[in-house]
């Protein structure tokens, strides 16, 4: 208890670094943080992109049940879709199609062997 009392009583409290406080405060308050524009999510755009992807996914599962025509063939015929050719993705060869709609680009990756959709991604510009 004696040691604890000594520690509490001998703190060296009278420390003052002169102008450092004001200088540092000015530096901090003039940082970009206080003037930069905050980035917010565009929920409408994100929601529309997600809905669109969901439709495409459902389409990719449902269409083969009723139609022999593959999703790749459908995309090939769609004028909004660009065929970006073959690329390597996650250690496999895939065909990539890009669908452009307003500010949204959706990329579809298909396995080259059986045209099965293996990946898709949405980019908002």
């Amino acid at each position, binding site marked *: 208890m004696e040691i604890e009392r000594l520690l509490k009583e001998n703190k*060296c409290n009278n420390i*003052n670094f002169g102008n450092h406080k004001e200088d540092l405060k000015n530096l*901090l*308050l003039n940082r970009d943080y206080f003037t930069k524009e905050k980035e917010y999510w565009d929920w409408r755009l994100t929601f529309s992109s997600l809905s669109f992807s969901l439709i495409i996914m459902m389409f990719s599962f449902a269409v083969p049940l009723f139609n022999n025509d593959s999703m790749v063939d459908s995309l090939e015929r769609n004028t909004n879709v660009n065929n970006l050719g073959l690329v390597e993705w996650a250690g496999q060869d895939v065909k990539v199609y890009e669908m452009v709609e307003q500010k949204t680009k959706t990329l579809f990756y298909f396995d080259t062997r059986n045209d099965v959709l293996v990946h898709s991604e949405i980019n908002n510009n």
Partner: protein
Amino acid sequence: MEMSEIKDLVLRSQNQDKDAFSKLFDFYYDKITKYVFRRTLDVEYSKDITSNVFLKALDNIESFKWKNGDYSFDGWIFKIATNEINQYFRKQKRYKLIIDDPKIFFNLGDDNKVSNEIEKTIDNEKHFLILNKAIRQLKPIYGDIIHLRYFEEMPYNEISQILNKNESTVRVYCQRAIKELEEVLKKDANNFINYGN
């Protein structure tokens, strides 16, 4: 300052409110500088470390989230300070310093007015210097705990947040730290001749 006021200032600072951050800075500046100086006993490094603490706090305040009760922000900013101090010690390898020669023991920087005033203050705080020298001979984690518990008067739950340890572990370490500190001071009794006076 009331905890609700700190919460409000932090929230407003997260929304880029200059005035709120300015008040938060005013409230924490003295606490941080004292903590840093007590740990380093070096004016120039204390200024640099304090600046880094607040720059990091500002850069990361947006991602700060309240947790572990009301002491969360205190714990968060002192954690930044503790990390910066430990980084300083790692760079300087200054754990083992000799108190016999005060000029070696602490660096008062340029011989300007501020340094002279601090030199006078420290000269009047011989017990603090002796305690500080003894604390530096302990394990770094014990040093952290003694400083936070007794000089900064922080509760155990806040210290556990700063040091990423269980509260019960901190309590045990604190008891051990005090015991070891007592042993070190006994060995160094010549320096502690006025012990308790």
